[in-house]
């Protein structure tokens, strides 16, 4: 039987820990027991780290007992996407290529969670090298959507979303290159945030597309989301692209209400043919914000519909280079060959799945001699046009509201036959990565068939506080985040 404490949020359970109503070891054991019990159904994890978790929980209890250095995350069981390097714990990127890879170092965000006293219960499943929108491209398993086990949890951070949605962990970290936090958060009915590019260190995040990747949190509610962001944000001397900016007190910032806040609605994000349930839910959410005193106005982002096309040039190009290092020499899989070129080619053919190969080839093509200007350079120019659109819009509004995903969770296999149809899942999320802006998804409704729908809020660069504030105000007035999935098939 599931221990009721597992249904709580981080801020609730953190209070219990501080009040000694429960110890971290008890809490962690309960979480692990529940995790293991439902794992055959949900399959969120690639690696479960029970011993490591209990060790950290015991340390957290000492910290709680001493009362020193206690943070809201001290003693709280969390989960980490399996592309964040964890020292001594294998980190696979859901790829056969890295089945045996054990990093000798921690990602900066992992280090920060540990410093805050958090407990990690394991490494979550994902699309291979974060390439996908359904977590189906994992070499290891298919994570299932807790709201309907026949549906995908979204991707690429499907495991990190499903485990929080099903109370296997109180929160988790994921990564978002084109929507990989926001889309699974929407599909699993939880809160997910992609911070501004540079807000959170990428050191130790196994790169997919370096100029787009960003680490961010999954949480059961907006307040937890702010706590997790506060813990991982900040400049890192190991990441040249992390910003030298102070990290606000998100918990205080988010409770200021939305009176007078200017909310922009871009018509390009409500195209004809958009799933009606999604469109309705998002529009209702906007009305709710208006009710609370926000001023809603239409904005135009004319170049943003080209974001997906630009993304599918830029991301694969960077990926083709980032994934070149998997060559069977220093770590990971090696398939023997007569000579070095044969070894390389066999290793990479066996180590990567079809989606990864597709993107590597696409990116290699876009960068290759004779095509660079037509594809890569063109995409970089379109990137600037899209950025200019957003800059202009944010001259008028404080936050932009859109759907997160074009539809609720879909069934396994529904889009795997046609890569392009899968790519279209990212249509509302990619332009935020292209521009580096922060984006958040908060639950805003349920489909007829009982699948969650997400509202995407987009903010100015480094203004996550306003996103959290808007989402918090909305969430406090609604009940979506309180619903729990039944872990049933239908």
């Amino acid at each position, binding site marked *: 039987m599931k221990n009721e404490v597992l249904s709580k949020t981080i801020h609730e359970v953190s209070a219990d820990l501080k009040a000694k109503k429960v110890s971290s070891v008890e809490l962690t054991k309960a979480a692990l027991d529940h995790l293991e019990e439902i794992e055959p159904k949900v399959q969120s994890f690639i690696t479960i780290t029970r011993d490591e978790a209990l060790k950290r929980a015991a340390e957290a209890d000492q910290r709680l007992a001493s009362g020193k250095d206690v943070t809201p995350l001290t003693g709280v069981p969390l989960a980490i996407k399996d592309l964040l390097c964890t020292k001594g714990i294998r980190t696979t990127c859901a790829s056969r290529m890295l089945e045996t890879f054990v990093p000798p170092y921690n990602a900066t965000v992992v280090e920060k969670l540990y410093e805050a006293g958090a407990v990690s219960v394991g490494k979550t499943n994902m699309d291979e090298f974060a390439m996908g929108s359904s977590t189906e491209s994992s070499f290891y398993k298919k994570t299932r959507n807790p709201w309907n086990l026949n549906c995908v949890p979204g991707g690429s951070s499907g495991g990190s979303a499903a485990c929080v949605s099903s109370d296997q962990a109180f929160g988790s970290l994921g990564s978002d290159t084109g929507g990989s936090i926001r889309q699974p958060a929407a599909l699993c009915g939880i809160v997910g945030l992609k911070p501004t590019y540079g807000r959170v260190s990428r050191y130790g995040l196994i790169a997919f597309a370096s*100029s787009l990747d960003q680490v961010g949190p999954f949480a059961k509610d907006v307040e937890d989301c702010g706590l997790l962001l506060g813990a991982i944000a900040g400049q890192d001397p190991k990441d040249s692209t992390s910003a030298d900016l102070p990290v606000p007190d998100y918990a205080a910032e988010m409770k200021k209400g939305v009176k007078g806040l200017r909310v922009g609605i871009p018509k390009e994000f409500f195209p004809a043919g958009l799933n009606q349930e999604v469109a309705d839910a998002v529009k209702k959410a906007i009305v709710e914000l208006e009710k609370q005193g926000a001023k809603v106005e239409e904005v135009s982002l004319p170049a943003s519909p080209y974001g997906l096309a630009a993304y599918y040039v830029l991301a694969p190009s960077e990926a*083709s280079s980032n994934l070149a290092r998997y060559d069977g020499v220093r770590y990971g899989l090696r398939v023997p060959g007569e*000579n070095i070129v044969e070894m390389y080619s066999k290793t990479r053919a066996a180590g990567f799945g079809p989606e990864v190969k597709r993107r590597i*080839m696409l990116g290699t093509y876009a960068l290759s001699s004779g095509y660079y200007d037509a594809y890569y350079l063109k995409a970089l120019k379109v990137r600037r046009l899209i950025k200019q659109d957003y800059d202009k819009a944010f001259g008028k509004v404080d936050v932009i509201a859109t759907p997160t995903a074009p539809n609720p969770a879909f069934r396994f296999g529904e889009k795997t036959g046609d890569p392009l149809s899968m790519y279209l899942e990212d249509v509302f999320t990619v332009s935020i990565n292209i521009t580096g802006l922060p984006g958040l998804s908060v639950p805003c409704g349920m489909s007829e068939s009982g699948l969650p729908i997400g509202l995407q809020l987009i903010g100015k660069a480094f203004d996550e506080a306003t996103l959290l504030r808007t989402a918090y105000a909305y969430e406090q007035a609604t009940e979506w985040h309180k619903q729990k999935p039944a872990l049933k098939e239908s």
Partner: protein
Amino acid sequence: MALSEKDVQYVAKLARLEVTDPEVAKYTQQLANILEYVEQLNKLDTTQVEPLTHPLDVKNVFRPDEPKPSLTQAEVLSNGPEVQSGHFKVPKIM
């Protein structure tokens, strides 16, 4: 710009990916579809537009020239598929 099977074979070779003939046929089709979708970028006039490589406007991030500890040799080699006398071993190069 129509993508041919020859292009896919060239790119696979460049990316060090062994591909079978049926794979080449499949990838050619799929990549051609994606590239066709990407062609829509040409609808935008970008003649006066500077490329944007970094979403962030940051410059001159440097590190002081101060030594930090390296890994031990055992740590360096710990993930190596094949190691020999302190080195990573690789098959013959020519």
